[in-house]
């Protein structure tokens, strides 16, 4: 097991190299010239060339890449073209709201979706199941931004229970912090929750047909033990897989959610940087997101071995 984890950790390196290559060259070949944008609408071609030279964008692409990779190796993601601040610092500043938003969404959705899926499978084709799955279809069909505005309209504008927008750092009090996260988490989490609940139900339904479940029932075990230990542990591999895929979904959802709720997190940073062609920031962010996904994939692969003793590496 340990050797497997070590091997998997080493396998992360080539993946990240490919991601870095891809990110760098994709941006360089995308339309839009940052030098022209910085220099302004009325700038002469000389002015634009001067900006370009200052940013090093006039050098050969390969040289630019080498400089960037050299920086990366030293933990330096470069400097923002516009603000002249280190990208690592910009990202660190925006990390808290995004982390708070995704973690709270993750925890709440998983804590709700799995029990919903288990109960739906247990009471398959009964009323509870139909309600749960009806909700899941609705939740899955609802785009984040539509749901977000609906929630804002009712909970913030009409009933004034929660703030319309904005983010309150955890350092400024737990209750305002939690309040500022409720609506964004719901908006972001509903699709994700619907996905996990559906997969949990499908996976549980299949497992509940198995002979060993009949054995567990023939032993007279309590229903919760049959469902939550005997069945759920067998149903866990597809569920965990979807939770991992869902995290990728969540990252794109974060960009939209942070924009709608005006939360100063990584999502907003991404949108602003892309609009301004601030290459170093965009590169840094994509690398960070890619690293998060690679790590989550790794964790999921490792979790399989814990969930199913038949899986050996």
């Amino acid at each position, binding site marked *: 097991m340990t050797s497997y984890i070590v091997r998997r950790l080493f396998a992360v390196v080539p993946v990240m190299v490919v991601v870095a290559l891809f990110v760098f060259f994709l941006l360089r070949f995308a339309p839009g010239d940052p030098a022209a944008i910085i220099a302004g609408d009325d700038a002469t071609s000389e002015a634009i060339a001067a900006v370009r030279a200052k940013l090093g964008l006039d050098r050969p692409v390969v040289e630019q890449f080498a400089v960037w990779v050299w920086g990366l190796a030293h933990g330096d993601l470069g400097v923002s073209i516009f603000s002249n601040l280190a990208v690592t610092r910009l990202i660190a500043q925006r990390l808290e709201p995004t982390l708070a938003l995704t973690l709270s969404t993750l925890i709440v959705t998983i804590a709700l979706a799995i029990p919903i899926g288990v109960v739906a499978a247990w009471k*398959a*084709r009964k009323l509870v199941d139909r309600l749960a799955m009806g909700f899941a279809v609705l939740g899955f069909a609802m785009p984040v931004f539509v749901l977000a505005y609906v929630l804002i309209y009712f909970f913030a504008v009409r009933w004034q229970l929660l703030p319309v927008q904005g983010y309150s750092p955890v350092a400024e009090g737990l209750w305002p912090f939690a309040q500022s996260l409720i609506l964004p988490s719901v908006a972001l989490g509903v699709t994700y929750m619907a996905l996990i609940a559906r997969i949990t139900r499908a996976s549980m339904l299949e497992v509940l047909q*198995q*002979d*060993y479940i*009949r*054995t*567990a*029932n*023939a*032993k*007279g*075990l*309590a229903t919760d*033990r049959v469902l939550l*230990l*005997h069945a759920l*542990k*067998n149903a866990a591999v597809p569920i965990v897989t979807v939770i991992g895929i869902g995290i990728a979904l969540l990252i794109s959802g974060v960009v939209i959610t942070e924009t709608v709720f005006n939360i100063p997190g990584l999502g907003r940073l991404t949108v602003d940087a892309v609009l301004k062609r601030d290459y170093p920031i965009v590169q840094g962010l994509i690398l960070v997101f890619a690293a998060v996904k690679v790590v989550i994939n790794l964790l999921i692969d490792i979790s399989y071995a814990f*969930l*199913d*003793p*038949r899986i050996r590496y």
Partner: protein
Amino acid sequence: MSGILEVRDLHTQFDTLDGVVRAVDGLSFDLDRGETLGIVGESGCGKSVTALSILRLIPPETGRIASGSIRFEGEELTRLSEEAMKRLRGHRISMIFQEPMTSLNPVLTVGTQIAENVTRHLGVSKRAARERAHEMLDLVRIADARRRLDEYPHQLSGGMRQRVMIAMALSCDPQVLIADEPTTALDVTIQAQILDLMLDLKEKTGTAIVLITHDLGVVAETAQRVVVMYAGRRVEEAPVEALFDNPLHPYTRGLMAAIPRLDTDATRLQEIPGMVPLLTRPIVGCAFAARCPLATDRCRAEAPPVVDAGGGHTVACWEVTP
């Protein structure tokens, strides 16, 4: 001897797209304390459904016990609450299944699966339950039991898994063990070992066994009494010697003739012509009439009554009535 389990006029039905299947159609039998009763019949004759009915494990979405009575130590199981039924399953009546490969949970250790039965029903500590699991693995003659407790089913052979199933089923000293084709999926040599083990444990614990099988050889070796089932009904019942010496029902005789023998020169086995009847329509007359060499018009019109042939031997047939 006193009956510990009395099944009377049991009807178990399933809803299918083709209509209601009468899988068990008026079955009655008794099980005495400490005895081994064989229930024999072809695939689809309702043997396994009978077993599941006794434990009330018929999936409620598709099937039900339509009528009849199942009394266990005088208690009517068909009217017991589900909670009381759960207390009884695995504790006072337990069951082992045909497929040792799929009947154990692949993601839980053998020790966990035996011990959870013990903690559930005997209310002992986890440590005591684990000790009991260890003891049970020793009892079913699994070598190196201490180590095996922490292994998963996929690390064991088919025969060992069936031993684990037996250990699990007997861990709470049940009064009745229902064994549904316990050796069918195993190699012949392993079959003999498992049957020996079951009989040996029966002697030690006094558990009564309902042994469900299609294999008359297994019945001959293990059971004291045999019920022969056909199309959800009992066609003959007798002490095992009486059944083999003097099979009365044409169906039983057909089954006997289909057993390969080494002491004759016959080159071809005798098969029973035809197929088990469809159970989606009520069967008029004798269920076996369509395949029976002795069938008459009366057989096709009227169900034969169960007649006592003496010495505990009963048969339901118009033509062989003694």
